[in-house]
């Protein structure tokens, strides 16, 4: 029964259980085996290098024609305008809205599973959260298009009518509040919740038990223990989890493709259709039917998306790793 209460780190891998380092010349078959292992690792490496290489190669014509103007606002590749800003801004806006909605919910869920729920339910609850990540995103997109997008229109209208002095709380198409950037962010939050929950939950579970018990033993409430012990201890890990969620939101494709209705314009009005675009949607909609130079522009967009996501993910993983190393 003790196994049930152990923290994630396996207890039998104590300090005495580290494999010895052997120094001997490897035999012939071992050298071949080592080569096979390194070769398969090389294929994984090729995925990254190959993706960047192919995207650069096929995106080069657009980059050459666009030059510095790829950071302008006019997108019309067939007439030589490669302004990517409306799409970049739209993808970032959706991810940020998604993360802003998902973060408090995920932290609450993580705390609930770790600290509040009965211990017996823990495996079942983490299973349900993992299940949330398993439902295909096209199903979320279809569900969002048919149910959530119309459902969020009334609150969005209320926001626009009463808090419309805030720039982002307006609609680009007067009177319409469905299929907006906000609706996409709302639905993306559902796919972001599992990743933030699982990463931050694991980080928060590594808070040393004695410090937590000390906080409670001194007469603190549970919430006091959470704010004064768990949050400071796992601050970095939570930041990493949020960044991972941001990466997930940036890369979300099918939800945005199905839900968003855009006019590829740079605008700060997020509550209605016909504003900012999204990289994933622009690629999906036009890739099959476009001219070679248009395709090149789309591939350039893909490269921008890939590099942004990659940077966010690498930073996030680094932060999470460091925080885990600090904990152990």
């Amino acid at each position: 029964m003790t196994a049930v209460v152990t923290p994630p780190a396996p207890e039998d891998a104590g300090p005495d259980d580290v494999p010895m380092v052997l120094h001997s010349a490897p035999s012939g078959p071992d050298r071949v085996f080592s080569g096979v292992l390194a070769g398969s690792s090389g294929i994984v490496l090729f995925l990254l290098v190959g993706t960047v290489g192919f995207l650069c190669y096929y995106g080069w014509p657009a980059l050459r024609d666009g030059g510095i103007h790829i950071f302008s606002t006019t997108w019309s590749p067939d007439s030589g305008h490669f302004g990517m800003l409306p799409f970049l801004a739209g993808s970032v806006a959706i991810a940020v809205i998604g993360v802003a909605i998902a973060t408090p919910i995920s932290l609450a869920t993580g705390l609930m599973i770790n600290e509040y729920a009965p211990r017996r339910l823990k495996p079942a609850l983490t299973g349900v959260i993992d299940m949330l990540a398993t439902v295909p995103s096209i199903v979320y997109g279809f569900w969002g298009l048919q149910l959530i997008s119309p459902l969020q229109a009334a609150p969005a209208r209320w926001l626009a009518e009463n808090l419309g002095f805030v720039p982002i709380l307006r609609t680009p198409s007067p009177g319409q509040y469905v299929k907006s950037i906000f609706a996409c962010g709302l639905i993306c939050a559902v796919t972001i919740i599992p990743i933030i929950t699982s990463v931050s939950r694991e980080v928060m579970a590594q808070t040393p038990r004695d410090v937590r018990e000390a906080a409670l033993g001194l007469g603190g409430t549970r919430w006091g223990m959470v704010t004064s012990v768990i949050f400071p201890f796992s601050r970095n890990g939570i930041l990493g989890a949020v960044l991972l969620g941001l990466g997930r939101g940036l890369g979300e494709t099918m939800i945005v493709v199905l839900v968003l209705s855009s006019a590829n314009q740079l605008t700060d009005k997020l509550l209605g259709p016909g504003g900012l675009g999204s990289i994933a949607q622009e690629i999906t909609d036009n890739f099959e039917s476009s001219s070679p130079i248009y395709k090149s522009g789309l591939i350039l967009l893909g490269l921008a998306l890939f590099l942004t996501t990659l940077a966010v993910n690498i930073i996030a993983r680094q932060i999470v790793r460091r925080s885990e190393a600090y904990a152990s």
Partner: protein
Amino acid sequence: MSQLTESHTPAPPTPPAPPSRVDGEPRNDRPIRQRRIAPEMVAELGGSAVSALAMVWLVFNLSGVSAPLGFGFCWLAAFLTVYGLLCWRRHGVVAMKDRLATVAIWVGALLAFIPLVAVISYVVLKGARAVFSDFPHFFYADFSNYTLSAPTSAVGAGAAIVGTVEQVGLATIITVPLGMLTATYVVDHRNFFSRVVSHVVDAMSGSPAIIAGLFVYLLWVVPHHQTGKSGLAAALALSVMMLPIVTRAAQEVIAIVPGSLREASLALGSPQWRSVLRVILPTARVGLVTAVILGVARIAGETAPVLFVAGGSPNYNWNPFSGQQDDLPLRVYQMIFQAGGNARNDAWGVSFVLVLVVLTLFLLARLIGASGPGRSLAPWRVLRRGPQRSGR
């Protein structure tokens, strides 16, 4: 050392009282269960909820506003205010903060579970009719009979199921050996290259799905022109998605194989390759199988990678190596953008099949993963054993 922190009931203790009695070392070092839900606490919660409901209902009725979502939101806000005031007057400000936080955390967690229930019940509600109206037919018919006026009973997901099974199967065949070997390399070899590979796997496991599709399109379909779109190309795109997922999970599983087993095998004179294939991987097999099934469940529903490379086809195509092929997510996508008729109903039907497949795989993985390391994976054994409590 007692383990108090994880054992609390939803209702928190009052602040001045110590969280639990500690009479020496608890037996077996198990947390002390503290199940104290005072009737008073229930009364405070219930009373606040009812009074908040009454207030909000009165305000909404008097002003004549009709907004169900707004009503719910206002009710929650009013409830928190009333309950906070009540706790503040009766128990002081520290207890108020603790109780409000408890309520907020439970509400937040509930918000995370609502979408899952909502999406699954919505899919079942919309899709079950399409699937079961003409029961087995929907599972073997294809979409060749689809017209604007065709009823749902004329079409079916058969061709798409064949495509998904073949593409995901091929992707698994490609990915599993590569993923296992890479994971072994990263865990066993501590050098610069393995650290780079480990970071690349981490970074790639979060990369956008659409990029995998673009990559395989440029790598495979462009050199082969129009004949390049096939089940194999789709399988390649899915492999690009699946490899990092499987490698990451396998890494974690292989890393916790006890070092003593490794040493014992080497000390008995076994070469490195034999100790990996005969000792380490078999010891970790339960975790590895779980990792693979979870990877399969994750990619079986991916639409974006196969969008440009599978081609899609309303008819059966049993050969994944030539000709365009359909699969479940792609069929859903195409039916959503099909104008009019029963297209949306058909799309819900296919979505239902897709969710059924994915969640079955997921539950299978959980069931296998719940059994201990190194145990038999024969289905009858797994089922008879039933799920066990896992330490995670």
